[in-house]
């Protein structure tokens, strides 16, 4: 019965093909806008996640300072630094396989009588060799307890000095002489800041960065979680241990514990909000399209009032009349949705060719089609109900 009514509805739409297509175009524009906007947000999400892929998903990072709502989400200045003893205590937690600390700060660097100020990332070598997957274009990372060895970021080696610095050459940092043992590969967009860093061991860092000279402070602790452990649970244990060690409550926290899962969640939140924002703007065009459907259906019903009266006279129930008009508006919606989706896929592909990240997931495709059908049916509901409830005799008399 529904299939027969659908056939009848298609005939009606074809009979008024110009108007049907104009209405469909409204939905095409709406669906196209939404899908393209969401595809841009999804493409951005995928792009950022790809860029963050150097973050292993089994790493927990502890930083000094905390993100607090009371400061508007800013990082509160460290009430106290993280220390080597924090690092040693955290490394002993059951869910932790290994870990290391890092210091960071500015220092003077000299190469062939050229002086510059550079940013030093001084860390336990385990961070470079086992925990992060930063690749080298030449040489090797520092070894455990090795002193006087540095790895240069790509720009430091190739761009900063008049003469390029190569593995095996000597440079001066602070008042200390170092041998360049490696040069890092050029970073990707999100990790390009690494290109201007100089990497060394924590012990050497304490000699060249003045503020870490006479203490055991570290600016960051990175911990590798035991394989198979639940990272969220271990993250909680790390937080509890730090609260205990620093004698602070959750509200007074002077450190931040993050995992790649947390970062991914934050990225997801941002791109999700972006999707919602862009999709919301685009939804306005779909709303206009749906008003177009309602308008078309109302006009169609007015023109077909006698026809509705005739159908009632030959025994159509109110439900049959309603079905006919709902199917018509649903068809407008779904055809508009399909065309809009195909157009968005083509445009998304084109954007990717021009380097604009864009990605349409199967969920978005299915959602767009379902949504366009629902928009069609919802827009047609009131007109269809009006049609169904027309008085047969009055409808037959309608001029």
């Amino acid at each position: 019965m529904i299939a027969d009514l659908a056939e009848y509805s298609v005939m009606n739409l074809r009979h008024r093909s110009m108007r049907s297509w104009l209405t469909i175009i409204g939905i095409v524009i709406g669906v196209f806008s939404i899908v393209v906007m969401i595809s841009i947000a999804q493409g951005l999400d995928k792009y950022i996640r790809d860029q963050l892929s150097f973050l292993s998903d089994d790493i927990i990072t502890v930083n000094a300072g905390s993100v607090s709502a009371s400061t508007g989400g800013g990082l509160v200045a460290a009430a106290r630094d993280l220390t080597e003893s924090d690092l040693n205590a955290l490394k002993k937690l059951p869910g932790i396989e290994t870990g290391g600390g890092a210091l960071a700060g500015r220092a003077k660097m000299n190469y062939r009588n050229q002086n510059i100020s550079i940013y030093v990332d001084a860390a336990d070598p385990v961070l470079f060799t086992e925990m992060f997957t930063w690749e080298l274009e030449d040489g090797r990372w520092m070894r455990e307890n090795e002193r006087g060895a540095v790895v240069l970021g790509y720009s430091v080696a190739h761009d900063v000095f008049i003469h390029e610095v190569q593995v095996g050459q000597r440079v001066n940092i602070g008042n200390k002489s170092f041998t360049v043992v490696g040069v890092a590969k050029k970073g990707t967009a999100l990790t390009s800041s690494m290109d201007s860093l100089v990497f060394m061991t924590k012990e050497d860092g304490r000699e060249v960065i003045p503020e870490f000279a006479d203490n055991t402070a570290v600016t960051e602790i990175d911990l590798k979680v035991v394989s198979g452990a639940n990272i969220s649970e271990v993250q909680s244990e790390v937080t509890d241990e730090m609260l205990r060690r620093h004698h602070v409550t959750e509200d007074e926290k002077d450190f931040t514990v993050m995992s790649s899962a947390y970062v991914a969640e934050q990225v997801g939140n941002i791109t999700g909000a972006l999707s919602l924002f862009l999709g919301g703007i685009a939804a306005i065009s779909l709303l206009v399209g749906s008003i177009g459907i309602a308008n078309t259906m109302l006009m169609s019903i007015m023109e077909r009032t006698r026809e509705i009266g005739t159908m009632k006279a030959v025994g159509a129930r109110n439900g049959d009349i309603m079905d006919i008009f709902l199917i018509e508006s649903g068809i407008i919606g779904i055809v508009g949705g399909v065309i809009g989706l195909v157009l968005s896929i083509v445009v998304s592909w084109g954007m990717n060719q021009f380097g604009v990240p864009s990605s349409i997931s199967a969920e978005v495709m299915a959602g767009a089609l379902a949504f366009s059908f629902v928009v069609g049916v919802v827009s047609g509901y009131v007109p269809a109900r009006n049609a169904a409830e027309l008085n047969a005799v009055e409808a037959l008399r309608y001029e």
Partner: protein
Amino acid sequence: MEAALRLKNVKKMYLDGKFAALNGVSLDVEREEFLIIMGRSGSGKSTLLHIMGCLDTPTDGEVYIGKVKASSLSRDELADFRRKKIGFVFQTFNLIPNLDSLRNVALPLLFEGIEKGEREKKAAKLLESVGLGTKLHNYPNELSGGERQRVAIARALANNPEIIVADEPTGNLDSASAKHVLEIISDLHLKEKKTVVVVTHEQYVADMGERIIYMKDGRISQDGKLRGK
């Protein structure tokens, strides 16, 4: 003999009861009877026809179709009942413009839930019976007035109803077409044994009936058998 149609003190009021289109009409129509309803414009004859055809409901009074009290049926029950028991023929044909003759005739069968192949077969047979076997796929705007009315008659017969109600069936036709249509309606009465109710202004149409009632001010002013019938 049980009446095909029975109206008991039927009233139809409009304008919040200020205007009575029907003002206490009681009427029995026998099975296989050919009833003519005449009267001036506004006398209530079309309202009476609509109520007899279950297309409208009375404000007061009772309507029986056979043993069924139609005036107590729900909206959907009334639609089902109308589809199975009553065939309508209108002055303005009321064909669906974007359906061809075959699909127009098959429309009541669609609402009856009959499968496509069967309903098209039945519709084709009905169109052949009214002399339109060669115009199955013509749209209404490709047909003459007389042909359109014959399509409408075929549609009225789709569910093989017991009662045919026709509102000025020749009102928009030239005399040759009108004659052809009247012959078909007459055959429905004489050969198919249908109960036929026709509203008309035309005396030559009225002359075909067995019984004639005149409506005046929402009441039956005269009711009698036609001579020789």
